[in-house]
């Protein structure tokens, strides 16, 4: 019981930070909205989709997934900063559960995602995005996006605890998340990629997430090399499996790393 209330105190701290430094919230929303507008108006005209409603229908699920994937970097650098300042040591010296601090942070980052996704959804709607899968499916899609961001923030926790410097960990996180989100179906169909890349791109969790969201938003998916395979037929279940796998690996690793006292 205490473990949960302790974690919530840590989450509350993160929300307080946002009220004290509102710039953080502003810029973490401006960036994805900027992506929406850039992709919509720069590439939107030249990518033919064969979907009713145009490129923005394909784009929005891709940008949603990319944005929640970047949670990883925010989680990692935030935690690395707390480590560097000695704050994590202070938390470790308190009689609180060993999981409270890391759970609290992942929850806080998810709450931030709710705000960011809402603003993005409004921005997308303004430039022509219209989900047609029904209210329930749309809500489900957003839930999945939050869950995916939550799962990924655990890899961020691990990276943040392992890092020595907040700036380094931020750079490394981007080095991982950028190719991962672009080597996918998020912004362009995979069918134009070399065949080997198609396999990677279509098995990529980012792609299965994007495909799952597209289905929930009422779109048809297009698969290249892996057409007919399990992830192409069941992107939603595959995505859930990926999330559980990530958490099964990184939750225990992170909690252990947090409690590790050899250094």
């Amino acid at each position, binding site marked *: 019981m*205490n473990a949960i*209330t*302790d974690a919530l*105190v840590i989450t*509350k*701290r993160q929300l*307080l*930070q946002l009220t*004290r*430094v509102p710039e953080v919230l502003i810029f973490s929303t401006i960036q994805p909205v900027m992506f929406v507008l850039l992709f919509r108006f720069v590439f939107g005209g030249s990518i033919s989709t064969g979907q009713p409603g145009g490129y923005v229908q394909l784009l929005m699920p891709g940008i949603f997934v990319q944005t929640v994937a970047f949670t990883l970097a925010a989680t990692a650098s935030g935690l690395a900063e707390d480590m560097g*300042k*000695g*704050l994590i*040591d*202070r*938390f*470790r*010296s*308190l*009689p*609180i559960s060993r999981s*409270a601090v890391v759970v609290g942070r992942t929850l806080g980052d998810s709450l931030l995602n709710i705000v960011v996704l809402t603003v993005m959804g409004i921005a997308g709607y303004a430039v022509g995005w219209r989900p047609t899968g029904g209210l329930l499916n749309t809500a489900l899609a957003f839930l999945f996006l939050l869950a995916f961001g939550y799962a990924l923030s655990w890899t961020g926790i691990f990276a943040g605890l392992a890092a020595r410097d907040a700036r380094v960990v931020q750079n490394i996180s981007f080095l991982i998340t950028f190719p991962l989100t672009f080597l996918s179906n998020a912004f362009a169909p995979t069918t134009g990629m070399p065949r080997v890349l198609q396999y990677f791109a279509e098995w990529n969790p980012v792609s299965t997430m994007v495909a799952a969201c597209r289905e929930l938003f009422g779109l048809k998916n297009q698969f290249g090399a892996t057409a007919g395979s399990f992830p192409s037929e069941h992107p939603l279940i595959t995505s859930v499996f990926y999330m559980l796998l990530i958490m099964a690996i990184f939750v225990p690793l992170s909690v252990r790393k947090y409690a590790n*006292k*050899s*250094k």
Partner: protein
Amino acid sequence: MKSVIAENLVKTYRKGEVKALDGLSLDVEEGTVLSVLGPNGAGKTTTVRILATLLSPDSGHATVGGIDVVKHPDKVREIIGLSGQYAAVDETLTGWDNLVMFGQLYHLGKKASIARADELLERFSLTDSAKRPIKTYSGGMRRRLDLAAAIIVKPKILFLDEPTTGLDPRGRQEMWGVIKELVEGGVTLLLTTQYLEEADHLADEIVVIDHGKVIARGTSDVLKKDVGGERLEVIVEANQLKLASEIITRISGTAAHVDEGMRSVSAPVKNGTKSLMDALREFDDAKLHPLDIGLKRPSLDDVFLALTGHAAEETK
């Protein structure tokens, strides 16, 4: 009753390459202040981190409040307060935010956390800055807030790791005042410092550590006695050093130590005041007027130099 006991603590880093603690033992009597004195890299922070359950020793054994720090770290955490070398608080939040947050993490409940935060801010003269982000605080204010966070639940045992390092003299005086008040309130305190003056000022007992080992222990007076008795010291003009040295050597019976930079001449003497009067007489006869003359008890700097062969400020 011993509140803190450490026996033969060994801790190495980087797979044994760096030996931070090399069989360190110490103990703190309940309600007293022990100062762990040593230069940078002597093992002070490692000792505190082990006692505060942040680090496991490679070998050795330690109890805090009678509880084994390795076997029952959770129970230890309930009775200790820790304030580290760097102010470990959330700098974007206000002082008040921080104290309320830590109060809640100590499971005080929201109301009690707020009441305690107000009380501590008042006590540490931080009420005026309570609602400002810590980023805007001076170094001394940050340290006081950090200390406040460490004593939210009135811990019986407090660890302070270099509480005044980096503070200006005024900040240090204020910090000392706050610490003294805590000690009068009955807390058992283990304090590390590289300032000999600080140990002298605050501690009932001092352990001197170097290279991860205790090299001396005792009260400030005992340590000083170990190094030798009183010294007669005189400060003169540069061109009078030679003459002064001759006079002091004659009175002391041992060769005087001359420090040309400080323009001082000193030597150990047995019967202090008589030697001082003799010296004054001889200087007067020689028409030599010292800038300063007096009897000096050895400083803790002298203690460190005598024990380790190197000065306390020296870094490895």
